[in-house]
């Protein structure tokens, strides 16, 4: 039984390991806002900010990706960030005066800090998060500046910002560092800034920032007897001790920031050339870091509050805006083992053909297991490059894609995103069906023109759709693009629209659509009115006169419209219909007195009343408007 449990645990661990993936993050010290900003380098988005108690400056990450160390120059201390929680842990560790730059040993055991203003360096144990005994250690340097540690872990190198020297320190036993004699650069007036060591630990490249232009000085044979290669002139002079240098993983290219307030340049230095390619980045470039696979280089721009992303072709592909977080300085890259969230468990989509706004509605369900997403990204392409929306996981899991083109099939790709911007694979949905049964257009349409004096009234009638949802109303347009709405008619009989006062010399075309209760619309059905109205019904009544009279009580006065008319000349008329607008309000038998009285309310002037004759077959004559005297 015990073996089975252990086997299951091992299997579980293996599965967890399989599900996890390595995700690169950049940690950027923003001096101006007391924050460390975390950037997901797969998406180049800021995913988290970590408040710091003091203004951070330099930053270094342990190779085992466990801790980040940040310097607080103004407070003589170093802070520690736990990368598993992305929070500051412990109290700031006191070091020397003005710690600026720092580096971590390859075994992740110790952090070496250059204290710029007291000519010392400190060594912090990552196991205890404390200075080792004797730290800080005095140096022979005027101004300790940048720190680099050889990949073999045996030697640390500290550049001197106020002199032409580099200090090697034997750290084979970091608890007992041995300070060697300084390596003096054979350049008159040289001042040292950024430094990097090649992967074989035998060559260092160091920036002489004071020369004009600034230079990169190769120091060869570090493992035996140092010699100096030819200096490489950069594109401009930095005149700042904060010009940083980073090497590509293949040691063939060095990236150097021209650290000056007005500068917008970072140089890409092909060492074998040597060839220097200036790259335009943001303003006041400060620190530089290279992705371990060498695919991208990241430069912090102190005055722009941005990070420039440079590809291997020395092109800035992306600029990451950090605002409102200000004055980015140190940058370091961690590769964290992250278990990404699972994709949405399911996704559905349907189309709503709203008027002039074809809309797809996408819904999905959260992943059934795994880390809880904080958001969902919706893309239009399988490569996940065309992001169209980000929906918070706390909002309804619905996305509406408006103003789409008809006759195009849309596919959406939905990915889960966790709090660090780590994305799942995509769940796709292709919208192929309508959200509701499609509403149909009117099943038939008729129209005729009725001469009224010198104008024409077009009378349009239609019948309800033979199938599908019941329309709530009909909309009538004069153009095929359905922009020129001329009337909205309720879906109650009579399904008729009268367009009065038209020009007799013009031909009119009408487009009618059905509209359901959700606002969905049908395709239009159209008619061009060419025929004159000669209805199969009886002839219309004549002399249709309305007179408004008052019915006066002591306490109120009612306005009464009395309509009288002359009977239709057709012999089979059995009644007359009285309409107010399109609403049938009374049916008067043809044998009754041809008069009708009705109350007028709310200032009604009786102009909307009309009358038709109805024959024994139920056919109606054309409407005859009531002439109100």
């Amino acid at each position: 039984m015990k073996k089975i449990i252990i086997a299951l645990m091992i299997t579980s661990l293996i599965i967890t390991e399989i599900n996890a993936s390595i995700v690169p993050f950049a940690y950027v010290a923003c001096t101006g806002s007391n924050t460390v900003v975390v950037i997901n380098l797969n998406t180049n988005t800021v995913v988290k900010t970590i408040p710091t108690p003091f203004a951070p400056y330099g930053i270094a990450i342990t190779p085992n990706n466990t801790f980040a160390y940040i310097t607080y120059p103004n407070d003589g201390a170093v802070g520690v960030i736990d990368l598993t929680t992305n929070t500051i842990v412990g109290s700031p560790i006191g070091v020397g005066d003005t710690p600026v730059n720092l580096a971590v040993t390859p075994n992740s055991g110790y952090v070496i800090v250059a204290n710029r203003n007291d000519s010392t360096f400190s060594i912090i144990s990552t196991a205890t998060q404390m200075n080792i005994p004797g730290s800080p250690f005095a140096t022979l340097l005027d101004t300790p500046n940048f720190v680099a540690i050889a990949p073999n872990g045996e030697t640390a190198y500290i550049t001197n910002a106020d002199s032409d020297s580099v200090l090697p320190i034997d750290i084979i036993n970091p608890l007992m560092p041995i300070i060697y004699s300084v390596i003096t650069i054979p350049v008159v007036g040289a001042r040292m800034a950024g430094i990097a060591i090649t992967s074989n630990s035998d060559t260092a490249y160091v920036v002489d920032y004071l020369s004009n232009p600034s230079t990169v000085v190769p120091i060869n044979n570090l493992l035996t007897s140092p010699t100096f290669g030819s200096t490489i002139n950069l594109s401009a002079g930095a005149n700042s001790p904060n010009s940083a240098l980073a090497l590509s993983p293949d040691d063939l290219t060095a990236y150097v920031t021209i650290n000056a307030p007005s500068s917008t340049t970072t140089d890409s230095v092909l060492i074998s050339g040597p060839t220097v390619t200036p790259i335009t980045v943001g303003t006041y470039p400060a620190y530089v870091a290279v992705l371990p696979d060498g695919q991208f280089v990241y430069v912090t721009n102190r005055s722009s509050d941005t990070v420039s992303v440079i590809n291997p072709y020395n092109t800035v592909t992306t600029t990451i805006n950090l605002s409102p977080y200000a004055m980015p300085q140190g940058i370091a890259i961690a590769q964290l083992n992250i278990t990404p969230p699972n994709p949405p468990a399911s996704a559905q989509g349907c189309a709503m053909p709203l008027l002039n706004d074809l809309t797809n509605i996408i819904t999905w369900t959260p992943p059934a297991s795994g880390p809880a997403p904080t958001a969902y990204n919706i893309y239009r392409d399988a490569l996940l490059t065309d992001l169209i929306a980000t929906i918070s996981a706390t909002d309804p899991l619905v996305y509406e894609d408006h103003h789409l083109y008809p006759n195009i099939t849309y596919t959406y790709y939905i990915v889960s995103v966790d709090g660090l911007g780590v994305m799942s694979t995509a769940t796709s949905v292709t919208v192929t069906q309508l959200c509701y049964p499609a509403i149909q257009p009117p099943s038939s349409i008729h129209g005729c023109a009725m001469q009224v004096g010198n104008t024409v009234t077009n009378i349009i009638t239609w019948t309800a759709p033979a199938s599908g949802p019941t329309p709530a109303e009909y909309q009538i347009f004069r153009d095929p693009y359905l922009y020129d709405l001329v009337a909205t008619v309720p879906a109650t009989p009579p399904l008729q629209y009268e367009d009065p006062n038209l020009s007799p010399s013009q031909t009119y075309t009408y487009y009618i659509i059905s509209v359901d209760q959700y606002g969905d619309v049908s395709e239009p059905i159209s008619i061009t009115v060419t025929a004159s109205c000669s209805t199969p019904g009886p002839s219309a009544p004549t002399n249709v006169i309305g007179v408004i009279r008052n019915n006066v009580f002591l306490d109120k006065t009612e306005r009464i419209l009395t309509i009288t008319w002359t009977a239709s000349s057709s012999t089979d008329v059995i009644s007359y219909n009285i309409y107010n607008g399109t609403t049938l309000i009374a049916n008067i038998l043809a044998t009754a007195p041809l008069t009708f009285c009705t109350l007028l309310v709310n200032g009604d002037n009786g102009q909307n009343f009309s009358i038709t004759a109805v024959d024994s077959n139920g056919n109606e004559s054309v409407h005859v408007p009531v002439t109100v005297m």
Partner: protein
Amino acid sequence: MHIIFKEENVMKKIVCLSLLCITSALHANVEWEAKIRGGAFIPRSSLFRDIYGTVAGNFDGEIAGQFHKYLQAWLNINFALAHGYSLGFCNTTKLWIVNSSLGLKTPFDIKDWLRVYLGLGPTFGAIRIKDESQFTGCTSSTKSSIGFVAKSGIDFFFCTRWFVDIFADYVYQKADFLKDVNASGLRIGAGIGITF
């Protein structure tokens, strides 16, 4: 309405004085009289007359106490009923007016058997109108209002305590329905009374 409010101030004083007089009379050795009367209500409003006719029935009962040689306090309940037709479509309409009033009047004995009087007092009345429109159906509404009445009359004593009262009163009364209704008019008629 502004005029009515001014009158109301006067009426308030008359009401208070009348109540004071009646209260005093109840505790003093005063002469009381009671009478019932009938007659006609002749509305002042031409619209009223057009709809309900020039004359409506009118009935009232009154009690008065003479607490001074020239002053009587009185309390009157009046009921008037009218029936008519709307103008235009001749739909039936009925009207009821119930009025209560009180005030002071001044009797003058001309002879032992003849007395005239003049009086003034506020009224509080309710007007109810029931219309039977062929278009809106049967509707009725009631409104109340405050007005005043001016009284005059002659009492003929034909027995020691019994007398005949011939009167002419003018009542002022208006109410706000869907439009203003003027229910003012002249009441004339006769009645019989007794003193005790």
